[in-house]
């Protein structure tokens, strides 16, 4: 399956009528979400291949107050070589060029990461716009985007003002994201909706739609700092809007669940959801990313188990 380069979502004029007509039935969404992992599963070679794919879709992330240049560089080294070579060789995957999708850090460490990833082709993503609350002065947030882009970030994960959603001020949300998009220039914009703070799935879906109309390249669930992060029902509400948006405009927008995705099993569930709801095209890094940090180690363990037949230990996998 090849992944031809896609035209970027240019955004659309805000259509409030469409936004307000969006309704998500929570009980129904939860029922569907609950059966995605029970209706589909992948085993053996298929599971190994899917897990390798999951690695390539990962925004390997560190977003801690105690980050230093040292641990960012370590993360970047892991991003280049996410799986031990002997495991890859045993899987027959040595030539697949498996690396993670991107490395995601605070603005402060963008330069460090860019240097560390030199020549790997792995992009650096920066969380921006007063992450995680998004309540810094508007001009400051715009300036932060510009600074990160100048520092070499090719992807900018912005956070929206939750108040705009909670008060139904869709025009304000639209204007905000549109301004952020303009500030990004050629860098791709991922709009973090902080779904754990949006109260209802209908709000999540409407915010998704407005963010796409404002020109988001990706919509993303969470900062990882909210009480509730990426869940399958929230993901359904968001990816179905992506499907609607493509049907309405012809543009494909990417999806990034983030926060709380720690196990290989969870990763597979998200891949199943994408394949079922949006199709195989959304299994490529230009349209799908996991925001994750601990996930990679668990995937490595499962791959080792597949290769050796023995359950694997975390301490045998090189730390990110």
């Amino acid at each position, binding site marked *: *399956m090849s992944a031809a380069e896609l035209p970027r979502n240019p955004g659309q004029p805000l259509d409030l009528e469409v936004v307000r007509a969006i309704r998500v039935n929570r009980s*129904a*969404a939860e029922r569907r979400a609950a059966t995605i992992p029970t*209706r589909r*599963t*992948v085993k053996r*070679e298929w599971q*190994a291949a899917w897990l390798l794919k999951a690695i390539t879709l990962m925004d390997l992330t560190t977003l801690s107050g105690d980050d230093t240049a040292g641990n960012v560089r370590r993360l970047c080294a892991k991003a280049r070589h996410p799986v031990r070579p002997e495991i890859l060789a045993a*899987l*027959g995957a040595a030539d697949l060029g498996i690396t993670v999708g991107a490395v995601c850090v605070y603005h402060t460490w963008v330069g460090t990461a860019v240097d560390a990833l030199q020549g790997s082709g792995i992009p650096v993503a920066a969380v921006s716009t007063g992450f995680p609350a998004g309540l810094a002065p508007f001009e400051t947030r715009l300036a932060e985007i510009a600074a990160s882009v100048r520092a070499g970030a090719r992807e900018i994960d912005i956070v929206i003002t939750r108040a705009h959603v909670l008060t139904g001020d869709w025009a304000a949300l639209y204007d905000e994201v549109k301004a952020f998009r303009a500030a990004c220039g050629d860098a791709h914009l991922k709009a973090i909706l902080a779904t754990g703070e949006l109260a209802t799935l209908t709000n999540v879906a409407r915010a998704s739609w407005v963010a796409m109309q404002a020109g988001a390249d990706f919509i993303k669930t969470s900062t990882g700092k909210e009480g509730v992060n990426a869940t399958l029902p929230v993901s359904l509400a968001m990816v179905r809007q992506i499907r609607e948006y493509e049907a309405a405009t012809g543009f494909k927008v990417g999806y990034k669940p983030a926060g709380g995705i720690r196990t290989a099993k969870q990763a597979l569930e998200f891949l199943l959801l994408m394949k079922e709801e949006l199709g195989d095209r959304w299994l490529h890094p230009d349209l799908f990313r996991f925001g994750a940090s601990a996930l990679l180690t668990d995937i490595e363990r499962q791959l080792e188990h597949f290769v050796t037949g023995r359950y694997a230990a975390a301490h045998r996998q090189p730390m990110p």
Partner: protein
Amino acid sequence: MPSVAEIFQTMAYGPAPESDKEAKAWLAAHGGRFGHFVDGAWTRPGTPFDVIDPSDATRLATVTQGTGRDVDAAVAAARKAFRGWSRLAPHVRARHLYALARMVQKHARLFAVVESMDNGKPIRETRDIDIPLVARHFYHHAGWAQLRDAEFAGYGPVGVVGQIIPWNFPLLMLAWKVAPALAAGNTVVLKPAEFTPLSALLFAELAHEAGLPPGVLNVVTGDGRTGAALVEHRDVDKIAFTGSTEVGRLIRKATAGSGKKLSLELGGKSPFIVYEDADLDAVVEGVVDAIWFNQGQVCCAGSRLLVQEGIHDRLMARIRARMERLRVGDPLDKAVDMGAIVAPEQLERITQLVAQGKAEGATMWQPSWSVPRNGCFYPPTLFTNVEPASTIAQVEIFGPVLVAMSFRTPEESVALANNTVFGLAASVWTENINLALDIAPKLKAGVVWVNATNLFDAAAGFGGYRESGFGREGGREGMWEYLTEIAGSGSAPKGPARSAVRTRAARTAPPALAAPADAGPGVDRTPKLFVGGKQTRPDSGYSRAVLDARGRRIGEVGEGNRKDLRNAVEAAHAAAKTWGRSTAHLRAQILYYIGENLDARGEEFAARLRAQTGATAGQARAEVAASVDRLFTYAAWADKWDGAVHHVPIRGVALQMHEPIGVVGVVAPDEAPLLGLVSTVAPLLATGNAIVVVPSEPHPLSATDLYTVLESSDVPAGAVNIVTGAKDALAKVLAEHDDVEGLWYWGTAAGRTAVEHASAANMKRTWCHVGARDWHGAPDARHFLREATQVKNIWVPYGE
């Protein structure tokens, strides 16, 4: 097999097989041959027939064709076990039911695999839906076993119950039948479907190991002949059947007049109604769960998709896109959505009906991929441009075939939804709670799901309206099907009715009317019939004489015939629309008003009773007084016959509502001409039914005297219609009338047989009684109210 690197590129699905090792080992342990399980032991295998895995046409085992003698032995074992089982302390029976629930959980995967192999349904469904529901059903009914004597005082088990179950949910249907039967203290002879007998045999064996006493649960395998032997067995007290309406009709006829209690859960063509404000993505998954669950072989499958016109094309496009992603294949593959059709016969039926749908001009659509060639597979199928008149819009296909139609308004959606002989389930999709809760009560269906479909739980009764059968399975409402009033606690029959004798006398020797005391002729006041709120002349143009206790002629009444009943039923339907939706308070007021007006004319009614029946003045006054009392009783009940909110395991509520049956015929008892009539009419009226009454044949004048009472009591025209005449002849007309939804009959054994037999035509609910009863003893009002209503469960999941 593709390499990891190749799969990395394609991201395709691969095989995910569930092991059949344990299931095969169980079959092998029996040598692949099974007898029946009777009286706690296997019988020697008899004439064998094959049990086939429909996914690959291989033979799984052979089982025994049950003979009449096998059924005799099983019924005898159940009868023998009944005495001990029914007398166990409730807590002890509860322990047994609890043990069965635990047994199912302990062997959950074995049951799931056996069921999938035998039936062809996906392992995901047996593992995640069927078997957990089975365990839940036994847990729930362990509770009813514990509570039986406290919650059902005055009621006891029916006796030996014959149960015949279908092939679509073999073990789940076993649970729905066996759990309540055993909880109530009955013993059981169960016949599983011939296509799918294995899980029932496994269950019987493991139940025995779990300590269920011998003879309490017996399983006899075989085809329809075995089922017929069970239905016709003289020592079976109740038949419970789930299956086709066609076979249900045969069973209704076969048991007519036998006194066997009967519950039938039959076919459906359930509407799935989508309004323009629904969450369409939710709807699409609902459609998948409605019609592609169990390959569409679900009696309550949402097989008729009714879509508001403005969103029709958008929804169809989404459904087609979703169908393209469904996966059909090996039932034991953990990643398929649909497995195999149960048997070649069923596949053939589906294929034929689809061909007929195309021939009749509907547009068929199937996904681009093809289903496996070996085995009984059929792809998900969507029909659009379907008219209500098309065959595929009317008959139950029982396969993965959805037919779609559009509607313009909510009113039209209800009309289309109810445009069917069935009435099992319905599904309503809208984000507007006002609309959902307005529509749900208007649908003729025993179960309504709002923004959901195919939700089941042991705490909520399941069962149909109309030709989808009667009786409920699950919940308190389901327990009544396996209980009967303990003789002596209510009013026992007191001997045969005398109407036949009287009738003959009236016809053969009409004596002259007793001359009035004064010189001139009295003003003739021969009553007419009471139809649509008016006193109308009988169509026949004949009258019949009414005699007193000593055979003297004391008056005449109209000789009602089938046309009078036809008119009465039409009048009743006109009234039912408003009366059924009137407030319970209003119905109570009117019943009180009837009581008030009857009381005011008490002496006149007492005199009439004396003249007709020869009762003493005291007896006659007592009957009038009791009638007024009874009217007050049901007036009191009118606004207290509440439903319930069932505790089902979802975030939401299941609203159990008591709805009127609709238009109900009453063939009133001959004895107690006033009290018998009032006792039967009042509960029906209180619950919102419209009624056509045939009053006491020998003593009809108390009924005809009531005309003016009803007229002066604000009873809406047509809510009560009274047609005098020859009782059993009129009863037969009512029983055969396809637009009469229920019929209560008090009379002779022959009359009961005729009524029950004829009722099979539209599967109307009948409640028949042979012999006179003492109407003065207070009957169990709740029992009358239960018979006067049917339970609808409305599931409303919520959450924003």
